[in-house]
């Protein structure tokens, strides 16, 4: 049989933020590529239904609140097998200028976007639940590389993900575990809807016009994730890749 470097057959991928938007689509595309997923989120009904509807015996949905940092070791002990990949897509955003910096808001965003990954990844390594040659992807954002007004706290957490991924890439290179981040521009999901509710449709339309290829769809991020999870990208590590329909490359 011809070797398919893009397939995820026999691979199990741990996905946070699996219950909505980009993370949910990543789970669907893992299935299409022949792999299995363990999806984490608080509202798992939809993901669970997807598993039942498609008779995915080797995939599962796990209900867990990632702000419970002290319980993450339990989540990892309960993993029944070693994983071949880890995608962190759970994330929240807010819109507030730094003038109104608020520590508890900062802590809330940082816990989900950044801190839970530090704890979770460390637990996966200590309990040896992550195979050699695994691929790890954090969903960052173009907010990490541009100073968008009102996006400060979110930007801090995303740029930290970009930087720490390079440290992981270096530290884990002897196990051939690859670690990269993707930096999406605006993708139509609950998160972009929330931005539209706060900022109004008019402001979003002005923003949308700045995207040469328009706003993205969840697939536009999920398919590159599949590529990064597969052997086809085995020489890519420590990178942050912008996927934004051209938004940051024009004047």
């Amino acid at each position: 049989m011809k070797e398919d470097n893009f397939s995820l057959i026999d691979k199990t991928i741990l996905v946070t933020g699996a219950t909505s938007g980009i993370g949910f689509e990543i789970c669907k595309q893992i299935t299409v590529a022949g792999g299995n997923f363990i999806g984490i989120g608080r509202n798992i009904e939809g993901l669970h239904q997807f598993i039942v509807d498609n008779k995915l015996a080797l995939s599962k949905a796990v209900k867990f609140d990632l702000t419970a940092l002290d319980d993450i070791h339990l989540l990892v002990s309960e993993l029944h097998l070693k994983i071949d990949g880890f995608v962190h897509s759970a994330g929240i955003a807010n819109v507030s200028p730094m003038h109104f910096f608020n520590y508890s808001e900062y802590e809330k965003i940082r816990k989900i976007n950044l801190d839970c990954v530090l704890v979770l990844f460390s637990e996966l390594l200590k309990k040896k639940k992550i195979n050699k040659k695994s691929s790890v992807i954090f969903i960052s954002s173009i907010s990490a590389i541009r100073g968008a007004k009102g996006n400060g706290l979110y930007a801090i957490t995303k740029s930290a993900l970009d930087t720490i991924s390079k440290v992981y890439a270096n530290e884990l290179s002897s196990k051939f575990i690859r670690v990269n981040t993707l930096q999406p521009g605006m993708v139509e999901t609950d998160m972009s809807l929330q931005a539209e509710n706060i900022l109004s449709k008019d402001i979003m339309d002005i923003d949308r016009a700045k995207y040469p290829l328009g706003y993205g769809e969840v697939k536009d991020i999920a398919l590159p994730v599949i590529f990064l999870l597969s052997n086809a990208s085995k020489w890519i590590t420590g990178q942050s890749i912008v996927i934004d329909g051209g938004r940051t490359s024009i004047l």
Partner: protein
Amino acid sequence: MEEFIESFYDILDETEKNEINKNTDFKNLDEWDSMVTLMLIAMVDENYAKQISGTDLKESLTLENLFMRIQSK
């Protein structure tokens, strides 16, 4: 209402105090821009623990209109 007007004045830099009262058509102030919009949203969140939306801003002509909408949330 007085307090709200005072807090709104506080987030501005260029506008004279006598231009700000309950009848001010705030979106037509010279200083009104995307930053003032975000500051106003954040100020209402901090002082009143309420989220105002783009629609709230769009449908409020005066500061008084906006304050009423905040109170009814």
